[in-house]
């Protein structure tokens, strides 16, 4: 089958981001009209949420294509977030691993991670829809901070749900959210972590269907969230294309590597390469203490098809269909599911999935700090750790998405290395 690339010429001036006009061939790796990626996705939601998601579903593409929306989104990404983020040739890392390694510096975004690309997009969406109140879930607090930040920017009420256990172990981010004027509500139910914070946010949305917009933090949840969040994050691969063209004379790298929690930084880094078969897609999951230890978050290895947070996808569960608690040293990868796009990339074989243990990730984090002078978030350290295992050809160009900086993780690094 002939496939049209979704975006043919991404460059700094024109941003042909949202081309899904009727009649255009759709990528088999993008969501279809009903939000399915192959067999995954959809909207498995209680009727109480139907009006909320339906309002969004009917409007999101139209709004994203409005010139006034694009203009404001672009401007904020540039002047507020600090985009484009550099594509940096990591010289010493490249020498060590005998391959050309570029880092996409999402760690240099305002608030310290890619999460803000999505929250900027969604707060503008919420404004267009006439919403006045914002809710969000957060695990490590990165998405909570990114949401609290844009709410402050727009003067909107902000409530962030966070598992009681995470509140205790992520104190600095809780403080940041409060400083930014958000209310942090503890999720006290179930296992009191990210999945329960997500449940609580969804319940809040059920209780406040009219004035509230729910800013989901990854490419998860019911349609249209996975597709909408992927589109907002797609700025990452759009920039990679023209940046690489400038540096290497070609738009396509040989590989794009990203860590996958829910999968938003990965979705953004892969987006414009999905239909370029010559670009290898590598997804890195958290193996925790090891895949077979019962303390892991490697969904592609351990998950089965099921329904979580309104989406049909791969998720970690008991044989009876109860969702289980994942584990990773990195709070941002500690999610029992994975976005439906990634479930499809995995089962279709388009993506190569690798899981990395806590120990390997921590070691890689220290190595990158000392070779390149960049302290990565532990989530991103997982992506670097594959360099020890995955062999590349000498001339291969490998782009690693450096999704966030490690400031938030200093305490964990310090404890781990007894620094």
């Amino acid at each position, binding site marked *: 089958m002939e496939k049209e690339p979704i975006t043919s010429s991404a460059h700094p001036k024109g941003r042909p981001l949202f081309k899904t006009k009727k009649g255009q061939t759709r990528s088999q790796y993008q969501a279809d009209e009903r939000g399915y990626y192959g067999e995954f996705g959809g909207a498995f*939601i209680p*009727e*109480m949420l139907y009006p909320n998601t339906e309002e969004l579903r009917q409007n999101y593409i139209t709004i994203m294509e409005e010139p006034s929306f694009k203009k404001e989104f672009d401007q904020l990404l540039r002047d507020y977030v600090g985009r484009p983020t550099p594509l940096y040739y990591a010289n010493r890392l490249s020498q060590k691993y005998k391959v050309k390694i570029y880092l996409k510096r999402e760690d240099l975004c305002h608030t310290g991670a890619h999460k803000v690309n999505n929250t900027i997009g969604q707060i503008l969406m919420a404004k267009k829809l006439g919403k006045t109140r914002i809710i969000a879930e957060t695990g490590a607090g990165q998405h909570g901070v990114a949401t609290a930040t844009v709410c402050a920017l727009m003067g909107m009420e902000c409530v962030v749900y966070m598992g009681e256990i995470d509140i205790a172990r992520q104190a600095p981010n809780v403080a940041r959210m409060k400083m930014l004027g958000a209310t942090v509500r503890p999720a006290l*139910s179930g296992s009191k972590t990210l999945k329960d914070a997500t*449940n609580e946010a969804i319940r809040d949305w059920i*209780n406040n269907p*009219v004035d509230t917009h729910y800013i989901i933090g990854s490419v998860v949840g019911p349609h249209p969230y996975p597709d909408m969040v992927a589109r907002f994050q797609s700025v990452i691969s759009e920039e990679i294309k023209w940046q690489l063209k400038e540096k290497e004379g070609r738009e396509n790298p040989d590989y794009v590597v990203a860590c996958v929690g829910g999968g938003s930084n990965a979705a953004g880094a892969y987006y414009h390469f999905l239909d370029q078969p010559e670009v290898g897609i590598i997804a890195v999951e958290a193996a925790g203490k090891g895949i077979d230890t019962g303390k892991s978050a490697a969904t592609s290895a351990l998950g089965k098809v099921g329904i979580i947070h309104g989406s049909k996808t791969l998720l970690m569960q008991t044989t*009876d269909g*109860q969702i289980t608690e994942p584990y990773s040293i990195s709070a941002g990868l500690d999610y029992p599911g994975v976005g439906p796009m990634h479930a499809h990339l995995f089962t279709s074989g388009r993506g190569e999935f690798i899981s990395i243990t806590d120990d390997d990730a921590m070691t890689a984090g220290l190595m990158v700090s000392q070779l390149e002078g960049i302290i990565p978030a532990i989530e991103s350290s997982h992506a670097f750790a594959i360099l020890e295992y995955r062999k590349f050809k000498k001339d291969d160009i490998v782009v690693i998405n450096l999704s966030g900086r490690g400031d938030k993780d200093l305490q964990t690094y310090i404890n781990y290395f007894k620094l």
Partner: protein
Amino acid sequence: MPIVYRNKMNRIQKKLQEEGKILSIYFTAGYPALNDTVKIIENLEKCGVGMIEIGLPFSDPLADGPTIQASSTQALKNGMTSEILFDQLKAIRKTVSLPLLIMGYFNPIYQFGVEAFCKKCQEIGIDGLIIPDLPVDVYLDTYQSIFHKYGLINIFLITPQTSEERIRFIDKVSNGFIYMVSSASVTGTKEGFGATQEAYFERIHALALKNPQIVGFGISNAETFQQATKLAKGAIIGSAVIKHLTAHGIEKLDQFVQEIIG
């Protein structure tokens, strides 16, 4: 084994045709103790309840408030599974003739296998299912024929936010009752009904739907039961039942029911 009269009227449909209002009781299977399920159902039948919803516990019940979520967490800790529930219920039709529904989230049913689940339901004598996160379109595309094959009625929800067009669509595809969620909320939230709910009840009544409506969410006592059933055929009580079970145990359920239907 009792004889299952298929193609005849399902117990739910029969019940809906009887005179009078229906009190439907929801409880979480496996709570307070794993093996309370059958005792609770038998008690409820004795004290004049009209219909029973057996809650299949789920780790992540999105549409439920803290009370039902806590009872589900406890039930799972007690060891409840789909398999065990079916085993507990295998002889239920020897002692109970009320319409019985299972209310559960889709993932555990999906893992069991939708067809295998429906088949078990039919063997046991379950009359219907309420699966809040199985949307109507997916049901129609993929599962309706299976439900029909095993004589099960699937119950759909509407809320105050549901458009008239969608309500009419849901009415068309329903063949039992419509579960009318009383307000924009998860279970167990509201204290009493105000003018907004009354107006909503009247609006739905005026649509003259083909399926009777049973109101759920926010009903906790005689007063809210009366309000909810002034126009609707019946009402469902869940969280208040769980709270009563927690406070007074399973023996005193008749007191709770007496207070509501007298």
